């Protein structure tokens, strides 16, 4: 897709100028507009999957980490990042998939958590400690009414990264972004 993308873009002629080499903030501003296809309320930056922005011999390189090993959105996200950068005027950006260190929900930013809640998805509770991985179920506040009277219906919700919960106060079901 990248070759076709560039052909179309270069035919257009008047591309916006790319940020200068070393201007990480300019790149992050572009990536802030790229939304997670499975949770289109948060950007890839807010989700914490953009791990590094660098330049190798003048070529922009962005390191991205998958949320889950089998996340079917991995390629879609990488293509969306590539497209956004090319559209912003970065010629031939390189998207590097990086596994280590493994993604944790601790990297979801405070803004990201607020946006998840507003979208109706309860953000991960606490930090991804051993306890939350192995131990008791966390107390998850309902994103609709804030009640703590909630219960887990299923370990998995609409995607692997979410669990299905139900609020006993307002009776609404909701997705909980699991701690990982």
């Amino acid at each position: 897709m990248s070759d076709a993308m560039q052909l179309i873009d270069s035919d257009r002629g008047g591309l916006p100028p790319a940020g200068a080499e070393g201007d990480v903030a300019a790149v992050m501003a572009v990536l802030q507009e790229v939304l997670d296809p499975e949770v289109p309320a948060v950007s890839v930056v807010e989700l914490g999957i953009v791990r590094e922005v660098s330049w190798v011999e003048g070529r922009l390189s962005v390191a991205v980490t998958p949320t889950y090993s089998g996340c079917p959105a991995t390629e879609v996200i990488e293509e969306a990042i590539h497209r956004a950068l090319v559209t912003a005027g970065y010629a031939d950006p390189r998207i590097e998939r990086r596994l280590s260190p493994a993604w944790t929900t601790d990297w979801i930013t405070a803004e990201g958590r607020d946006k998840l809640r507003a979208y109706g998805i309860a953000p991960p509770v606490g930090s991804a400690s051993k306890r939350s991985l192995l131990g008791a179920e966390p107390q998850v506040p309902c994103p609709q009414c804030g009640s703590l009277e909630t219960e887990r219906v299923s370990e998995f919700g609409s995607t692997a990264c979410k669990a299905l919960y139900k609020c006993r106060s307002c009776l609404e079901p909701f997705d909980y972004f699991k701690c990982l």
Partner: protein
Amino acid sequence: MQNVSQTSQPALVEYLLRLGDNALILGQRHAEWCGHAPALEEEMGLLNVGLDLFGQARHWLGYAAELISAEGGQGEVDADHLAFRRDAQDFRNLLIVEQPNDDFAVTLGRQFLFDAWHYHLLTGLVEAKDPRVAEIAAKSLKEATYHLRRSAEWVRRLGDGTEESHARMQRAIELLWRFTGELTEFDAVDEAMREVGIAPDPEALTASWRATVEQVLDEATLARPPFDAWMYRGGKQGHHTEHLGFLLAEMQALPRAYPDATVW
């Protein structure tokens, strides 16, 4: 490649195929539940666990494919190549993961016996001296942790449930037990990987697996068959039960019929 000598390369490829094939074949078994699970929530659970396993398989087989390609002789191979163009005798998965789904108790019992082993194995592999192995293990371990939590919960719930659910889970454990010997049996490949600081200590892995299984079966009020019972073996070396061939026939039919297709 860092930290692994040339002489251990063939063993590393074998070892990666074992890790990747376990995840791939068990993931395929989960995919077979699509449209058949007892409840919608459990179907999503089964398929999401399967998806995690496919992702892990892709990482392990992708690494194996890079090493095979670099070695030459077989041309350029990739993870899809390894998944879809090998025959049963070339697969290196454990016998337990290729066993049929049977009922829900067998599916979850199989998952638990595997998860308990997978969790402890990955915990060891996180310390591997090969950085690629260590990073794939670290990623996979996060997922294996909640897989184990879920499957152990089901073993307890069904074992310590109704008369019917108890009988079914007890049957599942007895049916699958003969395939668990391979989990704690180690051969020259495992030994070569332990020597170069990749595979964990076999005795510690055996002890951890047994302790987890004993604890959960006990909590589930299930009888545990003896660890020294007669066991089937050979999956790791490519000698499989008849079930693998049927599984591969379904999984590989489309890519083998249209080998050059890039979009399904």
